[in-house]
């Protein structure tokens, strides 16, 4: 420590002034303590509320913790014919190839049964008629509700 550093040390100590701790200092100090305590309480309350909200949201969004409804909703899709239903309701006699099966969706044969559909009318007409009477020979439905017409009706229509 050289002379200047010693002098600096002396100056730093000698410049000290006595300052008593007055009541106004104490009042201000405890006001600061109360304000800081309030801020900490608010911060903790906000943090707790945020944590509870986040936990609730996480529990609600977790898969497998909600009501078990999804497996029941997964019903098999109704099997449809390989070709889409006709857009125009024009009833023609060459419809058996595009006709829908007259049965319900629950009695629809599996997809493997699609190759056993009746042959198109370009083949032997009698065979087509037999096939219609045996399984599906209904004319193309004009409306969605007519798709479920009985085979007897469709047979008479083909016959006429």
């Amino acid at each position, binding site marked *: 420590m050289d*002379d*200047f*550093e*010693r*002098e*600096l*040390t002396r*100056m*730093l*100590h*000698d*410049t*000290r*002034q*006595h*300052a*008593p*701790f007055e009541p106004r*200092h*104490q009042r*201000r*100090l405890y006001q*600061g*303590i109360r304000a*800081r*305590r309030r801020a*900490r309480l608010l911060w903790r309350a906000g943090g707790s509320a945020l944590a509870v909200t986040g936990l609730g949201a996480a529990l609600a969004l977790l898969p497998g913790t909600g009501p078990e409804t999804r497996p029941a909703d997964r019903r098999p899709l109704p099997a449809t014919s390989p070709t889409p239903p006709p857009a125009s309701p024009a009833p023609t006699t060459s419809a058996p190839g595009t006709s829908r099966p007259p049965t319900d969706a629950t009695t629809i044969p599996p997809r493997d049964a699609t190759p056993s559909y009746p042959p198109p009318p370009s083949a032997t007409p009698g065979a087509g008629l037999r096939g219609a009477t045996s399984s599906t020979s209904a004319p193309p439905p004009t409306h969605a509700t007519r798709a479920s017409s009985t085979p007897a009706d469709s047979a008479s229509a083909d016959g006429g």
Partner: protein
Amino acid sequence: MFECGTVGMERFRADGFDEFVAARWSALLHVARLLTGGDRQRAEDLVQEALVKLWFAWPKVAEQAPEAYVRQILVRLAARSARRRWWGERPVGDVPDRPQPDDVSSAVAERSRLEAALAQLPPRQRAAVVLRYYEDLPEGQVAQALGCPVGTARSHASRGVARLRQLLSDSVRPVG
């Protein structure tokens, strides 16, 4: 009921706190004033804020080293305050109020000169000088208070002293 509990808890927590504050207020205020380059109002604010922090940590540090804890808070608050209020410090080219040999106010003038010179130092250099030469702390504790390696603290103190030597060379005469 809650109020009584709060007051009781306060009393329990603050056991010895008031005595410590009353005993060390003047010294802490002087350190804060040196750390702020002579800004008395800002020094008082810093001490108040540091003591509020101390109150919440009092149960933990009361039996150990509360003054070291407050000193560390003061240093950090002073550095942060200097960054936040950088416009509050206006360096001057010449140190004002040179004292006459028989001037009764020479002590006041010397303090003003010292504070003006300290105000021209960067906050960390100022803190290193104050802790090293006023608090007479070893380099390790200065580094701990500054939150930096010992070498960095030594460098801050060395550069601060060099700058003060330059600023105060006109007024400080060799001892003896």
